[in-house]
């Protein structure tokens, strides 16, 4: 009973950590630069928002398959299998939850008044120092919101996991899959417990996000 929960938390924690490292530079680039292919990059990042998870899962399944070029390459040269493994789940979670972290970070960057960045530059500070000392500390609400949303979204992942993870105990048997299996087996009592915990968790996450937003945005950037 507890196994799927531990696995789910492990998956969400690792995915969120990787997402944070990827999302910061991607969001920075999207917020502050303009290049011709930017709408294409933005669309790719946001695709998981509207795409049925099973579609994404299907393409990842094709890509990860050892019978195909990418999956075959990983299998042959690195002995890595991504289909029906925890590593494969982490990679697909990162892709699947990317917009949930990139978009809040991007709007966080954009909300910072241009004059603050310019003030930092004229005080002799480069882009990196400005990022660390001026941008990030003044967009804490966006950082926290994006991180929590991505974490929570990974917890609730179902379609992608079903397609490329299957239901292998201690490997890919996460809570949402466990719930589905219990219903299929007509174990409604256990299913009820899984569902109830997920519902309560999601509600608490959202209340937390909205409270943080309310607290941080109330008194920032008052001239």
């Amino acid at each position: 009973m507890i196994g799927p929960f531990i696995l789910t938390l492990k998956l969400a924690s690792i995915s969120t950590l990787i997402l944070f490292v990827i999302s910061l530079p991607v969001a920075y680039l999207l917020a502050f630069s303009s290049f011709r292919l930017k709408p294409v990059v933005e669309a790719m990042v946001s695709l998981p928002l509207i795409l049925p998870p099973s579609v994404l899962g299907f393409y990842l399944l094709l890509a990860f398959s050892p019978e195909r070029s990418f999956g075959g390459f990983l299998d042959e040269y690195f002995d890595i299998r991504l289909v029906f493994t925890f590593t494969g789940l982490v990679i697909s979670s990162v892709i699947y939850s990317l917009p949930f972290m990139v978009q809040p970070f991007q709007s966080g960057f954009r909300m910072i008044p241009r004059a603050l960045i310019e003030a930092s530059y004229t005080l002799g500070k480069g882009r990196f120092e400005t990022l660390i000392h001026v941008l990030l500390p003044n967009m804490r609400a966006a950082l926290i919101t994006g991180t929590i949303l991505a974490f929570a979204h990974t917890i609730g992942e179902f379609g992608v996991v079903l397609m490329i993870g299957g239901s292998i105990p201690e490997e890919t048997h996460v809570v949402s899959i466990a719930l589905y299996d219990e219903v299929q087996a007509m174990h409604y009592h256990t299913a009820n417990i899984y569902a109830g915990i997920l519902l309560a968790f999601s509600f608490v996450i959202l209340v937390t996000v909205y409270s943080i937003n309310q607290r941080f945005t109330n008194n920032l950037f008052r001239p």
Partner: protein
Amino acid sequence: MMTVDIRKKLHAGSGRIAMELQFDVRDGELLALFGPSGAGKTSVLRMIAGLLQPDSGTITVNNEAWFDSSGDLNLVPQRRDVGIVFQDYALFPNMTVRENIAYGLKKDQPADVVQELLDVMELIQMEHVRPSLLSGGQKQRVALARALARRPKVLLLDEPTSSLDAALRVRMQQYVKTFHEKHRMTTLLITHDVTEVIRLASRVLVLEQGTIKMQGAARDVLPLDDLRSLL
């Protein structure tokens, strides 16, 4: 000495402006750039600071070129050694008063510069307070102290007193005057306030539609009616 010779096409609220400017600011001089809003005053300041690129021309400070379109030279703001007081202060909300001032210190500068500025600007009692809790006048003093801390070659003031009430404005002008008399920093003051020009500047350029209409000592150049109302 700072020499500015620039051309730039600008889109202002009043339409397009073809800016064409030639002027210099002598060492230790406080020169005022006076004119109505939309004349392009702030754009001049941004071009000197490296935040906006002129279409062509040169900007030279103490014989060092900061911008030269013929040599394709355009120093980034970080390498220009300017201090700016922005119109809307632009204080860092996440830092205290002391941290805001210390942020701009150069690597080899002693930290007691910050202490001295806190004293001079009468900010010592609020050194650990964040900007959101300060009044307009206090914020403006912090912004001035922050710009001065690195002892820049050129100090740029963008309407530093425009959002203050009359009494605070006079007090702020006194801070600028005191500091300028003590350190003789080459300073460009942007303003649309006649009294400010008269109190602070030794010379004034009157800017209209991106070009200099008049220049000289404040009393010779500025509208006489405004001067009379001062007396």
